[in-house]
């Protein structure tokens, strides 16, 4: 994901978004919304100012900021400093940032890690509704049970190599569960595993 977003440089090859390098996009937030690390925010800024700083870079106005804050349920704490937010609230803030440009592609890295059941369900429902609107959602996770509930297509990567690419249905017919599929497929790619 970091390579796609131009944060890291690949040793070889390239990643394209809609046929273009991400770094060459003029208004990237309108094409791709990404949340890699919810804690990657300046704790001294209010939620509203944080989002407005991001929005302005892509010519997005304050009305849209208020809209996404409402959508993720942070409207009431919009003027509070982000530093005092819980992990769940920061996760919501990060999702609000990803949604700012109303992009057709969304990328989330481990979006439900460390969330309470309420937050997990909220994100699951949000992902589904965003996908139902016709958006592409790329989600990385190690929570196989969660992926079995959320995802349509699964890509398994191990040690930087593609191991499998299939639909959830395909994997669950071949293996007892998605978790079993993951364990069997990645057995050869475990770098630091406990003895089994």
């Amino acid at each position, binding site marked *: 994901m970091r390579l796609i977003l131009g944060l890291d440089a690949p040793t070889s090859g390239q990643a394209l978004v809609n046929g273009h390098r991400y770094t060459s*996009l003029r208004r*990237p937030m309108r094409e791709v919304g990404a949340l890699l690390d919810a804690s*990657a925010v300046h704790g001294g800024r209010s939620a509203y100012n944080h989002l407005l*700083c991001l929005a*302005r*870079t892509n010519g997005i106005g304050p009305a849209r900021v208020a809209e996404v804050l409402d959508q993720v349920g942070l409207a009431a704490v919009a003027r509070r400093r982000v530093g005092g937010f819980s992990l769940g609230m920061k996760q919501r803030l990060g999702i609000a940032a990803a949604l700012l440009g109303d992009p057709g592609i969304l990328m989330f890295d481990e979006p439900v890690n460390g969330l309470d059941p309420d937050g997990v369900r909220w994100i699951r429902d949000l992902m589904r509704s965003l996908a139902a609107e016709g958006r592409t959602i790329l989600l990385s996770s190690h929570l196989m049970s969660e992926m079995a509930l959320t995802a349509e297509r699964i890509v398994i990567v191990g040690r930087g190599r593609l191991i499998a690419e299939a639909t959830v249905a395909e994997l669950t017919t071949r293996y007892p569960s998605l978790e079993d599929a993951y364990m069997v497929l990645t057995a050869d790619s475990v770098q630091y595993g406990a003895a089994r």
Partner: protein
Amino acid sequence: MKAVLSSEWLKLRSVTSTYHAVGTAALTVALGIAWTLYVSALADERGTLRAAAPEQGFLPLVQMSLAVLGVLAITSEYATGMIRTSLVTVPNRSTLFLAKAAIVGMTTFVAAHAILLLTYATSRQITSGRHLGFNEVSFSHDLPVLLASGMSVTALALVGLGLGAAVRSTAGAVMSVVTLLFVLPGIATYLPPPWNTRISTILLPSLVPQIAGQRLSSRLGDGFLAPWAALAVLLAYPLVALAIGYYQLKRKDA
């Protein structure tokens, strides 16, 4: 570019550290008033004396505070991880860095000149007819040194921004600025002559008097640089630091 500039301007305005830095720099006005009242009282006792001008004596406070502002503009983003969020919204690193430099440059330029002029004006009001040395020349005579002082503040803030982008650490970048502003000049002064003056002449604190055509200090005497050359060296400091910072930002993974 305009969009990124407005974002960077909001970033600077929406954190308290900016107000702390500018507030600390603005203490110069209060300190200048206190200093002037003190030397004025002394002059009332003794008649005439030669005191340092407050806007010169407290200049290092303005330089240091606003250099920290320049450092924090980039290192606070590395410390919090915000830089990755910023680079996802502005993937063109040149644009992001240029916008940051422009906003830091303009903010510190305006703040420094406002603080220095206010210090100048209030102290000259207080001294009225007394003979204090620093208040006996006209404003037009003092203008070059005032402008050079203000520019030195912006130069240091941009040096801070450039070094901050290079080392990605607040402590490291602040220490580098302290070295340039205080440590190196301190060491250079005590080198055996003529090397003390030769080295000092190109160090940051010596550039302000040379741009205004004044001597460096009673110990070091006259510098070797003509006003235009001193100005060129003053501009070279931030340019070199920004180039190093830009190179590191561009080359390394965020």
